[in-house]
């Protein structure tokens, strides 16, 4: 069972402030996600979606609880990893609301930055990037600058960047927020396809319930608690 586990969260709590000013945003979150699952994270504004996402991405330290990524326990009431950034570099990919590509790097450099930082060799990185770009149908854009591409194209490049380091988990913070409905569905289909073909778990923050049919699970933050709804296999939409 644990071999198929992408992430396990137990009694995760996040509070801000102290004493009378203490505000608890997430209170005792528990859920397990498997490899290759496409998960939607839904909550009203201010409910703590980004806070949860940042904790899952090892960017924000929880107040208490336990986080396992794959089989590695990374947090158990304290960080158990020495270098959180190395962990992110190797195991987690990020996609944001906007593409947030580095404007002074061309598309190829944006995508290869992380693998090279991980010490991977050019002969390994280049074929993988070509494969990803072929997969995303963007292989002719490698030498372009982000400013030369459209919003949708840049969002696909952001997905390529998130995939370039072969992550176990991709955290996507409203990746379709800036796109129209057609493009949003196209991006979500692509993410779904990635989860299936690359065996990557994607947690996608979204407000758009029209995207749920593409997801395997929906996490909902309600009254600081996490509800998990399993939607089952929806591969016919892919």
């Amino acid at each position, binding site marked *: 069972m644990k071999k198929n586990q992408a992430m396990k969260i137990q009694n995760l709590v996040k509070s801000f402030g102290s004493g009378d000013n203490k505000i608890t945003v997430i209170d005792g979150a528990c859920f397990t996600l498997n490899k290759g699952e496409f998960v939607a994270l839904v909550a009203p*504004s201010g409910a703590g*979606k*980004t806070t949860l*996402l*940042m904790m899952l*991405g090892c*960017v*924000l330290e929880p107040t208490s609880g336990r986080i396992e990524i794959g089989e590695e326990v990374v947090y158990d009431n304290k960080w158990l990893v020495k*270098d959180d*950034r*190395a*962990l*992110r*570099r*190797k195991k*987690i*990919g*990020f996609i*944001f*609301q*906007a593409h*947030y590509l*580095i*404007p*002074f*790097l061309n598309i190829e*450099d944006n995508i*290869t*930055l*992380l693998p*090279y*930082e991980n010490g991977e060799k050019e002969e390994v990185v280049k074929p993988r990037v070509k494969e990803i770009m072929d997969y995303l149908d963007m292989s002719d854009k490698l030498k372009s*600058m982000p400013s030369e591409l459209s919003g949708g194209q840049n969002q696909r490049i952001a997905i390529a*960047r998130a995939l370039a*380091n072969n992550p176990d988990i991709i955290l996507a*913070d*409203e990746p379709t927020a800036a796109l129209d409905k057609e493009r949003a569905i196209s991006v979500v289909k692509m993410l779904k396809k990635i989860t299936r073909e690359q065996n990557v778990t994607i947690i996608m*923050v979204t407000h758009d319930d029209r995207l749920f049919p593409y997801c395997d699970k929906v996490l909902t933050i309600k009254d600081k608690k996490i509800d998990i709804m399993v939607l089952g296999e929806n591969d016919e939409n892919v």
Partner: protein
Amino acid sequence: MINLAAKDISHSLGKFIVTAISVGVLLGIVIVMIGVYRGMVFDAKVLVDDINADIWVVQQDTLGPFAQNSRVHEDLKNQISYQDGIKHAEAITFQTFQMENKYGDFKVMLVGYDPFGDMLVIDKTKLIEGRVLQKQHFEIVVSQKTNYKLGEYIELGRDKFKVVGLTKDTVSNSGDYLIYTSLKDAAILQFTYTNERIRSDEERGIKSGNPHLVNAIIANVKDGFNPKSVARNIERTTHKKVFTQEEQKNLLLEKVIKKSSKQIGMFTVILIVVSIIIIALIIYTMTLEKIKEISILKLIGIPNFTIAKMIIQETVVLGVLAFISGNIFAHFISGGFPKRIVLEMSDAFGLFIVILFSSVLASLFGIYKVIKTDPAQAIGG
């Protein structure tokens, strides 16, 4: 491995070069200030070097003839000539005054010497046109900076002098252009008063005329004699103060230009400090402009070291470009200054090391900002 600094610079190359040139102009001004200081030191010694006398005999208890007034009798040169170890001795006078011609007005120092003496007061390597003085009267050699031409006549006092030679790079310790006449003509210029003054003096019972006073006796020593020993020996046997060439130069540096050079030195230090602060602010601003990208880099897992390396590399490139443009700027403008500017590569490199070291230190503000930046800033919501 991707070099972030190179990519960032090439992405905004124009802006980066303009910034580097702006910093370079500032550094250029610092280089020129150092050049002004060097020029003062150079000018302070140039006259003493040109005359190349081993010893200077001046009025007792004075630091003459440059640091203090000195008057000695012209015939003292005969007494000095017979001193042990002396090869030649000559009398010399210095007087400064304002001159005016069609090209403008300027201050000059008139050097009076015996054209038939054994010592070459004019450094022949600096004589670019014409010849040295060959007559006792009415000939003059001038600095080319006075704009007089060879063969032109200059009216000084009651006489007209023919320009027989032009020199270059000949200035007094104050940077005034040098002109040379015979000792006799110099004495006439110095001691011949107006008719009114002569009449007034006669009424008072004062006898006018040439008192045969000069400012110093210069001498060279024979081979094998130590100028210092000869100088001390003359001091013992005459009631005069005697300096060697080195002592005279030290006097000029220590007494005559010390305050001015200190002032310029202080100004230079202030300029360097201001330059460092400006460079620090530029680096900090450049870092702040990229703070969004930096927070994304941090969020996706790029270590601080890689980001700090980018900032330091950009600082170093900025420093190198500023150094190059600063030197070009300094050389470009230095010719337009009225006084000598001595630009030495060693000074420029010294400044480069100081600026580079300080800039890298200053970039630590930017790096501190990077370390403090919250990677979560990249996430909206």
